[in-house]
């Protein structure tokens, strides 16, 4: 049972963000800009960054949700699976490999990002803005993962739930909207 009373119809992060919509708003705005705003990284690539950080934090809800979002945006399931379990052989660009390495370091601690990791990313063609956004996405999911698990929110077991949530994340993004979660019910 969650540590504070949350809407039973809204599992994982969704009920937590609804507990206080005024504090949730800047978090949602930040997420929308980072994951859906104009960028030289695709939406799918940015969802992969969210996925590896959530996986590193062993946050089941966020890992399943962002894996499903990456899958639907990339149109296949292999990439998200491999970046979590076999990153050396993941079918992503050399640049993405270096950015995902930075994200994994940030998940543990900001101090774990080395000059070598940054140099590798730049050598693979990453821009300063891409490195900035990678670090901030990884930091943001260090926040989300702690909210989801810190409140012991409900983690649905059925994969179909995350596929429904991924459709919402793809079609509506991260900002608040009317009847946002109408499509969550199975």
């Amino acid at each position, binding site marked *: 049972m969650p*540590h*504070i*009373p949350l809407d039973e119809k809204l599992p994982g992060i969704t009920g937590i963000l609804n*507990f*206080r919509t*005024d*504090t949730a*708003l*800047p*978090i949602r*705005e*930040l997420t929308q*800009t*980072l994951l859906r*705003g104009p960028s030289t990284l695709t939406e799918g690539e940015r969802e992969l960054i969210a996925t590896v950080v959530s996986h590193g*934090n*062993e*946050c089941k809800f966020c890992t399943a949700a962002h894996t499903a979002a990456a899958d639907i945006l990339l149109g296949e399931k292999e990439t998200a699976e491999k970046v979590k379990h076999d990153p050396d052989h993941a079918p992503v660009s050399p640049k993405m490999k270096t950015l995902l390495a*930075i994200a994994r*370091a*940030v998940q543990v*601690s*900001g*101090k774990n*990002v080395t*000059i070598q990791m*940054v140099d590798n990313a730049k050598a693979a063609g990453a821009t*300063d*803005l891409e*490195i*900035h*956004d990678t*670090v*901030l996405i*990884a*930091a*943001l999911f*260090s*926040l*989300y*993962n*702690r*909210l*989801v*698990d*810190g*409140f*012991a929110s409900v983690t649905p077991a059925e994969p179909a739930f995350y596929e429904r949530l991924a459709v919402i994340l793809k079609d509506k993004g991260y900002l608040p909207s009317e009847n946002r979660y109408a499509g969550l019910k199975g």
Partner: protein
Amino acid sequence: MAHIQLLNDQLPGIVGLLDYRKETGQPLSALAEILLRGESTLTSGEREMIASYVSYKNDCHFCHSSHGAAAAAHLNKDANFIDDIKLGFVKTQVSPKLRTLLNIAAHVQQGGKKVTEADIAAARSEGATDREIHDTVLIAAAFCMYNRYVDGLGTWAPPNNEAYMPMGEKLAKQGYMSF
């Protein structure tokens, strides 16, 4: 030097990053403003103590010192207060309720799963409300984000406590939207 070329590399810590990308800086500042200075049954001094304590545990010198200085400004303490945060507030009077909330925050810093039923029960027995527990977890989680952002991009930070006192005064009096 930071890992990326900032627009103004004279600006320390998160200040240079907020300036680098305004689209992300605006919501980051707005979140700090509502969490640390918005309406709450916890004082701003108490909330800045939680922020600084988590930042110290993440070994983020800039955030530990700047939010320690903000707490000092709210609580009329001198620069030595920033060192007392490292010791877990041995010289500072801390209410039993705030002690239980600092304990929750320390567990959030380690990982969300480290927060136990017993941690929450201890806070409730000292009178903490759902909203206070929510805000404590969110402040702690938010600083796990800010700390990683500041150190993950290799920003610079003034070494001495005294250097942070004017910044703490500004954060306490004018808030987070003035940066």
